[in-house]
């Protein structure tokens, strides 16, 4: 179990008064405070870590969010923002003395402007919900995390989410135009707007990926793009993980950028096939999903060139999707991959590190060796094109010992990522999961700089504390504003 800070006894003692105060601010169904009803809020997508919160509130407007934050600020109560609760790094893990602010009820699409190619939405709109709203007009919202069906745009902003197609289109930060945020003292601020790159400091840049530690996002303006003429996926099966890894590097270094380049190993292929029935090659040790887009002629050309590279790596098979349904099934399997691992293991830890693609074969080999020495199976599923690894370490939560081994295994993988010149997190955020590993990546001067930014927005460290920074650093009195 992860260490969480000791709850503030004064807050716990004032529980009833705090709940009453919140009830005065929100409609009846918007405040949850009974023990039994709080329990399902104790975890997000990383269910190995759990903590029942003090209360949950479900505001419906920016003003309600502001009044809740103002109230919490005045009373020194910690706040944990939550969207769909799909975080794999424990970004929405509550604290015993915190109020969880769930933004799921703020799920309206406020405006769509095709001429200026933007959409203004509330934070509780799902990622796919934006694309669905504009698809009829031939548009889409590009970042596509695997959980895009369920995850919400507010969470995407806070974690700077990526996805399979960010190889070409970039991550959330590259597709964001504006935000409406509420600061911890209840002030409502609008940043950016209908155009890229606002005047002054890059506030959007600071807020994107801030993991709910600087403010609560209540409105998001995103760039929508006109959909490509067409797209086609190709499945290539290989005899080994390292061979597939080497092939990825060969594709990337050839200068061709497919719109998506995804890797799955044998356990992942089998679990996903059982869910999606996409015709994945069950005889393969590893498989790449390679998608290209453009006109038919462009697709043919790219597929031929990529196919030629793949053939150098002795593939078992190479199959090009023949229809939209086939492509949909291929992606359904990939996007459902993490959940599908539930078919072969009761629990898993999903890692999220990035490495230079040239180091892929070596890193895959070393993960395989660690899997053996830890005695835990691992499934590899990842955005190979940008070297964003998602090894899933399988364990049994009913056996605490296997969980501890899984945690240690995970830490070793992330350290390996940093060692080969990569980074602790690609797109899932640091959350609580990678909090204590931040020192592997940053020295204390760098961490202090980041903490100063946090302090500037939230001097009392009430917003989503106990995440991102190692616990000792996160709870020490804030560092002085200027060194």
């Amino acid at each position, binding site marked *: 179990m992860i260490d969480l800070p000791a709850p503030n006894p004064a807050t716990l003692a004032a529980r009833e008064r705090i709940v009453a105060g919140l009830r005065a601010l929100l409609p009846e169904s918007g405040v949850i405070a009974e023990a039994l009803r709080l329990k399902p809020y104790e975890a*997000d997508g990383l269910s190995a870590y759990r903590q029942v919160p003090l209360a949950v509130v479900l505001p419906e407007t920016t003003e309600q969010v502001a009044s809740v934050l103002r109230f919490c600020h005045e009373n020194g109560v910690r706040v944990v923002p939550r969207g769909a609760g799909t975080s794999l790094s424990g970004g929405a893990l509550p604290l015993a003395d915190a109020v969880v602010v769930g933004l799921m009820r703020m799920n309206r699409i406020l405006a769509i402007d095709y001429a200026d190619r933007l959409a203004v939405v509330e934070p509780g709109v799902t990622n796919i919900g934006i694309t669905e709203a504009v698809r009829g007009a031939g548009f889409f919202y590009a970042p596509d995390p695997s959980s895009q069906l369920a995850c919400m745009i507010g969470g995407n902003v806070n974690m700077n989410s990526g996805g399979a197609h960010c190889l070409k289109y970039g991550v959330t930060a590259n597709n964001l135009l504006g935000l409406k945020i509420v600061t911890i003292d209840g002030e409502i601020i609008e940043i950016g707007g209908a155009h890229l790159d606002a005047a002054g400091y890059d506030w959007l840049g600071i807020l994107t990926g801030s993991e709910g530690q600087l403010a609560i996002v209540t409105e998001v303006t995103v760039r929508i793009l006109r959909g490509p003429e067409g797209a086609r996926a190709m499945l290539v099966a290989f005899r080994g993980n390292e061979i597939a890894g080497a092939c990825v590097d060969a594709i990337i270094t050839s200068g061709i950028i497919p719109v998506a380049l995804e890797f799955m190993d044998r356990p992942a292929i089998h679990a*996903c096939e059982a869910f999606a029935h996409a015709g994945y090659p069950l005889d393969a040790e590893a498989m790449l999903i390679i998608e290209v887009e453009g006109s038919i002629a462009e697709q043919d050309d790219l597929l031929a060139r990529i196919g030629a590279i793949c053939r150098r790596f002795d593939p078992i098979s190479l199959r090009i999707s023949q229809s939209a349904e086939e492509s949909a099934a291929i992606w359904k399997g990939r996007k459902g991959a993490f959940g599908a691992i*539930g078919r072969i293991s009761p629990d898993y830890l999903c890692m999220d590190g990035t490495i230079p693609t040239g180091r892929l074969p070596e890193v895959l080999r070393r993960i395989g060796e660690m899997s053996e020495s830890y005695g835990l199976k691992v499934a590899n599923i990842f955005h190979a094109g940008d070297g964003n690894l998602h090894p899933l370490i399988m364990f049994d939560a009913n056996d605490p010992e296997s969980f501890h081994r899984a945690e240690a295994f995970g830490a070793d993988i992330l350290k390996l990522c940093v060692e080969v010149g990569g980074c602790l997190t690609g797109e899932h955020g640091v959350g609580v999961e990678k909090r204590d590993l931040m020192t592997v990546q940053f020295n204390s001067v760098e961490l202090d700089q980041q903490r100063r930014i946090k302090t500037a927005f939230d001097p009392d460290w009430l917003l989503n504390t106990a995440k991102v920074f190692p616990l000792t650093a996160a709870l020490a009195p804030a560092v002085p504003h200027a060194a």
Partner: protein
Amino acid sequence: MQTNFTPEQLRDPEIAVANQILRTCVHCGFCTATCPTFVLLGDELDSPRGRIYLIKDMLESGRPASEEVVRHVDRCLSCLACMTTCPSGVDYMHLVDHARAHIEETYRRPWHDRALRALLARVLPRPRLFRAALIAARLARPLRFLLAGKGVLARRLAAMLAMAPARLPAPSPIERPRAHPAAGPRRQRVALLAGCAQQVLDPEINAATIRLLTRLGVEVVVAKGAGCCGALTHHMGKHDDAMEAARANIAAWSHEIEAGGLDAVIINASGCGTTVKDYGFMFRGEPEPWRARAARIAAIALDISEFLTRIGYRPTREPPGLTLAYHAACSLQHGQQITGEPKALLRAAGFTVAEPAEGHLCCGSAGTYNLMQPDIATRLRTRKLANIVATGADLIAAGNIGCLTQLASDTLPVVHTVQLLDWMAGGPEPAAVTKARAPRLAH
């Protein structure tokens, strides 16, 4: 996901099954996105993942069900959209069935809730009683103003009165137990589940099914002693009543299998189909011969659209130039994972088939849900109808009587898929089609 059952608890086979289901859930949250109640209410507690958590906590604790758990489990439509979405293959259906039975056993509902449930459980599965009740409800309609109250009871009663159709079809002799011989040489022999509420609300559905099948060379048996499939009481957690209904059907059809052989048991109300296909699971712990019989019946149970696809369907009339909005009943698309067949059949029959947006969302009918949870059901109905109307279709086709009743409105006529298929293969024009064409003829 981690569970905390004691070895003792796990010795109970029911708990062992629940434990297995719970362990498959990895808490990823994908299912929340397609759950109608989460989409409307925006609360984890009204999502599949939240309910799974509440149920887990209830079963682990061994406590009687609490008001809080009951509130959120009661709001579940059992639409099973969550099962279609879940990548991990969590068997939510059997988990929530278990929870409902636990609730029924350990929780004392307020008196009016108990009374209403008992009434529905008694009346709906019995066609004669149901008919009488609908007539009474129709007569009571003018008294609706007495129910102006805002209480749960008043709103539920108002929903019941609103549901009673203004015109009730005359009782039809078609469901009387007998064999309807195949026209021409017999290719197959099947039993038809004549059902309960459906035959009162719209006897034409069974009539069309029998006409179409016999014309295709299928002998159709309405077995003596078969009746309600048990779904209505099953979903209320009334385990014994459901088992009794299922047992009667299993006995009746097993008798038919021995007497003349059966190639299939045909169901034309998909809500019932989901349950009949689950007889094997329901009877897994029963002594033989019931266990084997139940498994055999479940194995040959088919939705009418599956059966028609299997034996081949061809129209004899010219395409009618009508556009249908195909409404996918949850019990078909999620409960039985039948998505392509009905649309393919309707297209083969010569219709243009439009698919409304948000097709995965329930219309709010969900068995007796529209009576028990009128507020949520009404919001879902409104949303569904808006999506359907947006397709510009002439009428609505669906394969489940619950949906047909729920979606009945002044805007677009509703009709069962099989009636359209029967019409195009030589049967009479369904009343809904006549209605759909009327305004166009007037122009």
